[in-house]
């Protein structure tokens, strides 16, 4: 069998049945990384000792004939914004170049407790700020489908690693589209759970009211398995919700016939690439063919989502990133004579251009005289965006849209124009601001063989329905 192409269940079953071992699996993935990753750039740090120790534990369980946990022996990768005890974690930033966290992110700890083998840490835009992965302080990631193109961002390494068979599954984070858009660009499945569904403990904060952790996988079934593993209340994150976690895998098999799927005209207007439109419309037809009822809905404030997002997210970021001051961890400028000079120079040298741009925008939006006009205004419009979805979800069970207005663009294409880069998130930010879950599932390709993503948005804490619709589409396609 091709070890690198396995799904979560197939990998675990292979180890359980002793057809392979967790150790050979990990080694096969490291070999693949060694040959493939130089041209992709998905991994920043490999955690071989930790991986092989865990693999040996799983092998010894299997050898004794004991039942493996749900991800027993499954090789996974982790976006470098999630802290890992003893394994360098940089958030794609020079300011954390040598940071060795003293604790584990809850989502990572839960994957490992379920038997997963953590191969290493994945490249991303610095502090998850970007839509192309070109803001990584270390190196850009190349799209495995076409090396001249971006993998999307900010979880570009997480998407590229799954697409290039360098991990069975990965964790990413989504603040404005950072799981779903790269999943769409690389042709994999990316799931952003409801805000509060997965603990944010150990996720290096970008915008705390928006940030979410979720899986990127080869199949919808794998996404359901991964979510089941990481979801649920965590006392270490007071915003993690006390809402029961259903068996997402069992829910997949429920029929989709009769489900009402909303289609919002605001997601099919100007700026949508014609080939992307064609693929997404064909996917919606397919779902109609599976018995779903297609219902027109309206999300009238969609055009205000990007400006709202870039005020809310940058304001929160400017506050969250104040902690990087060269005192307790991270880079410190050595040439400073006073404390104030040390703060400034450490941050000046440590942060990249996009991070500084967002800190400046967020600080401006929060500053005296502008707070009401920008930050407070954006928070009020956020209420309108949430109400748009509340109205729509009175009529439908889920909403289907394109994930991104275009397929993967070229490296360098948007780097000099921050605003055009921000607009790449136009179909994804609404779900971040509203707290609802969303999944991107591959739905065909453009003439240039670039993947297109179908986005399915659901009600709060109703990941089961969007997973079910995504699974039905995947099976029908």
């Amino acid at each position: 069998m091709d070890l690198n192409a396995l799904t979560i269940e197939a990998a675990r079953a292979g180890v359980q049945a002793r057809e392979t071992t967790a150790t050979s699996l990990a080694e096969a993935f490291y070999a693949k990384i060694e040959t493939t990753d130089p041209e992709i750039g998905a991994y920043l740090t490999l955690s071989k000792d930790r991986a092989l120790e865990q693999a040996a534990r799983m092998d010894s369980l299997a050898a004794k004939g004991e039942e493996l946990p749900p991800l027993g022996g499954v090789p996974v990768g982790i976006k470098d914004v999630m802290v890992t005890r003893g394994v360098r974690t940089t958030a794609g930033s020079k300011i954390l170049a040598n940071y060795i966290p003293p604790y584990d992110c809850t989502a990572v700890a839960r994957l490992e407790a379920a038997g997963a083998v953590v191969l290493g840490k994945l490249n991303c835009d610095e502090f998850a700020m970007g839509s192309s992965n070109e803001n990584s302080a270390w190196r850009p990631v190349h799209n495995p489908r076409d090396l001249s193109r971006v993998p999307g961002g900010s979880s570009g390494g997480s998407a590229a690693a799954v697409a290039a068979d360098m991990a069975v599954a990965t964790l990413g984070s989504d603040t404005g589209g950072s799981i779903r858009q790269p999943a769409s660009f690389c042709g994999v499945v990316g799931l952003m759970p409801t805000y509060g569904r997965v603990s944010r403990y150990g996720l290096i904060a970008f915008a705390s009211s928006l940030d979410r952790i979720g899986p990127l996988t080869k199949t919808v079934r794998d996404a359901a398995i991964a979510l089941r593993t990481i979801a649920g209340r965590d006392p270490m994150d007071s915003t993690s919700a006390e809402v029961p976690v259903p068996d997402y895998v069992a829910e997949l098999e429920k029929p989709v016939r009769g489900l009402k799927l909303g289609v919002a005209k605001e997601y099919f207007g100007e700026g949508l690439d014609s080939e992307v439109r064609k693929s997404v419309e064909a996917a919606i037809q397919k779902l109609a063919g599976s018995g779903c009822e297609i219902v027109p809905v309206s999300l009238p404030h969609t055009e205000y989502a990007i400006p709202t997002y870039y005020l809310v997210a940058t304001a929160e970021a400017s506050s969250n990133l104040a902690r990087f001051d060269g005192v307790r961890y991270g880079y410190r400028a050595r040439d400073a004579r006073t404390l104030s000079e040390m703060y400034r120079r450490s941050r000046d040298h440590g942060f990249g251009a996009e991070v500084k741009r967002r800190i400046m925008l967020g600080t401006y939006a929060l500053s005296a005289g502008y707070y009401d006009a920008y930050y407070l205004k954006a928070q009020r419009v956020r209420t309108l965006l949430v109400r748009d979805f509340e109205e729509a979800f009175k009529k439908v069970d889920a909403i289907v849209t394109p994930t991104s207005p275009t397929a993967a663009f070229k490296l360098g294409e948007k780097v000099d124009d921050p605003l055009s880069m921000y607009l790449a998130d136009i179909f994804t930010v609404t779900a971040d601001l509203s707290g609802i879950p969303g999944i991107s599932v591959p739905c065909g390709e453009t003439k240039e063989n670039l993947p297109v993503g179908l986005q399915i948005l659901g009600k709060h804490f109703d990941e089961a329905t969007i997973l079910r619709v995504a699974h039905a589409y995947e099976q029908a396609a």
Partner: protein
Amino acid sequence: MKVTEKDVAYVADLANLELTQDERRLLLRDLNSILDYVDRLSQLDTTDLPPMSQISDRYGVDQSRTGSERFAYASREDILEGLRKSLPHEVALQNAPDTDGTFFKVPKVIER
């Protein structure tokens, strides 16, 4: 232009950034271009709308409960035994750029 050079310098100061002349020039351009785009929010009358700073008091909680009762599940008894263990001292210091073994060390705070 909404943002002036003076504003850039003032905001950089608030944000604890020094920034080179080149960076200031580019930020002047970028902030103005982004804020021009953001201006479309002023088309909306939001006078009577409540601001939303986060959604977690709206979903996934028992709406019949009010105030701190709504988040009772997230609180713990305020007793010593209920406290989580802190990081051991040496672990908390291990990523610090400069320490004396007990404290974080920083350059002089007060000029003499």
